């Protein structure tokens, strides 16, 4: 590569936390500045889409794309950046698995619009209106992007080279990924980088369950005095540690809260939520069908629990929208 490698960042349907992670690099940002030439970073600097459109294909060396594909704009930019970049990395849970926005797949667009524009308590007299697709403005006609029925991950829109999981990805992992990319020591295309192979339980130091220890009642974190020494499952609290990759350094567990699965499932697990059900349901301790029902009432929102970050990438979304999902 002639000069410094060109780096691009883009922020699609997400909370922006991934952008802030970059700033967390702190002083190391200066080194980044020395190493790479940031050619597109709308969140930080005043870059325009036309700048990218003007580039030649594959001109950008590395593109970090964070955020899910919610509307037509996200999709358009994703396709454009794919064409312009050699390496496209899905940065953070939203682009990797759909993240929190992915939970929108539980509802259809019309229900959401009604909630936002008709029934929300804080609405003023604008209640009942709807945003118009096209608007005449003094500067000219402007369009707002079209909301797709289905929230899709980056990989479900364009071909993605690597995935950097996390909500947000831990800053040290981001730095490691920088080093590996710059050093060119990347694993096979399509693999997850910036995370471990095994699950959180491998690194979690809590005392694990013994033979015959079963769950008599599911409890949510606020309903029980959580023991910092014992594995959450032995306390009847569902922890997604067993179905989530290690690598985040366990900020949640160290804060005495169960893992929520943002780093995504380990290799070989196709659907994180159903795998969690398989693991957790095996620990239920009753042989009476009626009692079983009562125990299951302890899990108030199975999809929210099992697919907090992975609903868009899950088979459930495929089933709901089929392959199309326009």
């Amino acid at each position: 590569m002639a000069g410094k490698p060109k780096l691009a960042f883009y922020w699609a349907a997400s909370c922006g936390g991934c952008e802030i992670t970059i700033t967390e690099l702190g002083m190391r940002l200066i080194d980044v500045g020395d190493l790479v030439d940031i050619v597109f970073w709308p969140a930080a600097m005043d870059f325009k889409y036309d700048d990218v459109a003007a580039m030649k294909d594959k001109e950008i060396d590395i593109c970090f794309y964070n955020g899910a594909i919610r509307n037509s704009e996200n999709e358009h930019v994703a396709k454009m950046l794919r064409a312009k970049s050699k390496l496209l990395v899905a940065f953070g849970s939203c682009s990797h698995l759909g993240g929190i926005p992915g939970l929108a797949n539980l509802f259809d667009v019309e229900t959401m619009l009604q909630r936002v524009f008709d029934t929300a308590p804080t609405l003023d007299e604008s209640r009942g209106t709807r945003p118009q697709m096209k608007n005449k403005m003094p500067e000219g006609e402007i369009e707002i992007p079209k909301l797709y029925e289905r929230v899709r991950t980056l990989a479900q829109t364009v071909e993605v080279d690597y995935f950097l999981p996390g909500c947000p990805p831990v800053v040290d992992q981001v730095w490691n990924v920088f080093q590996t990319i710059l050093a060119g020591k990347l694993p096979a295309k399509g693999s997850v980088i910036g995370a471990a192979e095994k699950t959180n339980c491998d690194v979690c130091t809590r005392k694990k369950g013994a033979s015959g220890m079963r769950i008599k009642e599911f409890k949510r974190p606020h309903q029980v005095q959580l023991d910092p020494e014992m594995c959450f499952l032995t306390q009847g609290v569902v922890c997604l540690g067993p179905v989530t990759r290690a690598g985040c350094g366990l900020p949640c567990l160290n804060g005495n809260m169960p893992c929520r699965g943002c780093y995504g499932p380990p290799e070989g697990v196709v659907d994180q939520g159903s795998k969690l059900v398989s693991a957790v349901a095996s620990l239920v301790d009753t042989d009476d069908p009626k009692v079983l029902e009562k125990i299951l009432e302890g899990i108030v929102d199975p999809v929210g629990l099992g697919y907090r970050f992975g609903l868009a990438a899950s088979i459930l979304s495929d089933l709901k929208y089929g392959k199309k999902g326009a």
Partner: protein
Amino acid sequence: MEAEHPMTFADQVRAIPGGEHLEMCFSCGTCVSKCMIQQKLEPEYNPRRLLRMVMMDMREEAFKSPTTWLCSTCDLCYPACPQEIHISGVIGAVKSLAVEAGYTSPLETVSVDETLCSGCGICVMTCPYEAPHLIEKEVNGVMDRFSEVDKDKCMGCGMCVAACPMGAIARPGVSNPELVNQIKIKKHKDAPSLVVFICDWSLRADDDLTILESYPENVRVIHIPCSGRIDPQMALIALRSGIDGVLVCGCAPGECHYQRGTYVSACKISLLDSMLGQMDLADGRVRFVQLGTQDRGRIRHEIDGMLAGLQREAA
């Protein structure tokens, strides 16, 4: 007083909890026919004869007998015994003596792949037979925790295989890939496609097995040792591959051959169903039925009912 006579084999068995009053057996044979192992697995399996061997001090023969090793203490026989002998308790006692004497189980058991195992302990908590337990081991300089399975206790039911998030524990014949590869149905334009996961012990009558095999291609039957072996992910994989419905059949409560498999899968499918419900996909495409030992012919109703439901759904 004459010399303290050495403990006979029967005394030793009686000394172990569960092994009491085996001498009350009057060989009526109820336990042999209530248990399905002889019918389905091993012609030599006969708990009544094992009790007789214990009473007649035939120690070696008892240790070698398949009855000692194949009994999964499902306790189908205990409430049926007119002499109220805890038969599975006696067999368990003989088994523990056999293990002490150095004999090992001939059963096809699970094994742990330590490169995958994250030491989460879920298999340890799941196993009805307390076969797996966590061990500390040093791997290239670093202390790590793995699950290790006691071959003599494992009954090969596969509940741990389904529970293991990493797919680190596997049983030859029913490992995850082997099952997923069977989930293939040629698409039929009018007949809905249905995958039936059925446990080896829920259909007592051979006629029911022939009913099962009598279905055309659009019904794919996959045999698993226990309904507890089912992983809801497989059901989703089947649905995504275009299959219209998934039916999981297990034993009735209290009749599970591996004690708790049927409750575990009831819980899994119920949770999966509520998830499908949240995504308003719950139109009965995934169902779990518990077939009792007297429910002869019911498998036909369940499958036909499901196919009819899917037919209506598809229309």
